């Protein structure tokens, strides 16, 4: 994919009127820790602190392991997340986030450590019964350009309250660019959260594990 089309897709992702829940900013003066295992092709760990409700700072580490070639890429980065806009509706909330950062990358198809830039965005909408999110995340260096686009649609079998465990059935469609995975990877996930803890796990159409855990405190 060309740079122009990458920018176009990212812009579309940010402007699309879609509906998400795993946010890079949970709440003001809160710390968010996220861990994700992406079906053998990706795993990522992140930690962010939000001084205010509309931005957070932190960093992460992501590893990509191509299931097409023997290529592996590892990026450790610092990142700023920014809430561009939030719509507080009577029984719903919608958000648009963007983020950017930079870090160092290593891999088995290039030598040494390369400067890598990270950019992405997320648009989401949620009620207590349905939610949807569209996220795009680009890691780019001279030696590689990998973008992960993720669409999630969720439905809750019941409307949870604060003191209850929330349960969500989620379907996920994910597309990797940069030779990590061919085609769109689909996954069915079961998500639970209560208070500041969230865990989800499921299986992809390739029969692999897809899982995520998030903690806010």
């Amino acid at each position: 994919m060309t740079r122009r089309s990458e920018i176009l897709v990212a812009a579309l992702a940010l402007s699309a009127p879609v509906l998400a829940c795993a946010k890079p900013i949970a709440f003001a003066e809160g710390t968010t820790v996220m861990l994700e295992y992406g079906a053998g092709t990706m795993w990522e760990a992140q930690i962010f602190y939000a001084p205010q409700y509309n931005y957070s700072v932190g960093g992460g580490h992501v590893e990509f392991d191509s299931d097409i070639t023997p290529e592996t890429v590892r990026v450790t980065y610092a990142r700023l997340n920014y809430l561009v806009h939030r719509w507080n509706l009577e029984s719903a909330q919608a958000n648009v986030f963007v983020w950017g950062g930079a870090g160092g990358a290593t891999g088995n198809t290039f030598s040494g450590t390369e400067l890598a830039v990270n950019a992405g965005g997320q648009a989401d909408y949620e009620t207590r019964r349905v939610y949807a999110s569209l996220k795009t995340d680009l890691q780019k260096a001279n030696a590689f350009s990998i973008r992960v686009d993720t669409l999630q649609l969720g439905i809750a079998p019941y409307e949870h309250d604060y003191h209850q465990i929330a349960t969500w059935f989620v379907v996920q469609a994910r597309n990797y660019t940069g030779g990590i995975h061919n085609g769109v990877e689909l996954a069915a996930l079961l998500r639970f959260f209560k208070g500041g803890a969230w865990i989800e796990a499921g299986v992809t159409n390739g029969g692999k594990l897809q899982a995520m855990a998030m903690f806010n405190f």
Partner: protein
Amino acid sequence: MNPYRILLAVLLLLISVVAHATTIEMHVNGLVCAFCAQGIEKKLRKFPATADVVVSLEQRLVAVALKDGQDIPDTDLRKALTNAGYTVTTIQRSDTPIDAIRTRLGQPKP
């Protein structure tokens, strides 16, 4: 009856309600998930006058129990909720005990 006396009586009644208010109930837009509730609770518990906080996603309600003889101005409450990323639509004071509100909301006591 002298209209000034009626006005005075109403004012005294209002002052007495405010003076004895033990709980503040706020309706909040955008309150849809546990993380929202967690952030709001954390913010409101930082007020020295806060004794307890109850959040109901179902009713989009945030209730603050006040310590004896203390209060939190509406402007401070609105600012706290706005800075937490949410929109307050109404603020009401009452002398309803916080546990009665929990019962009304079907929430367990801590």
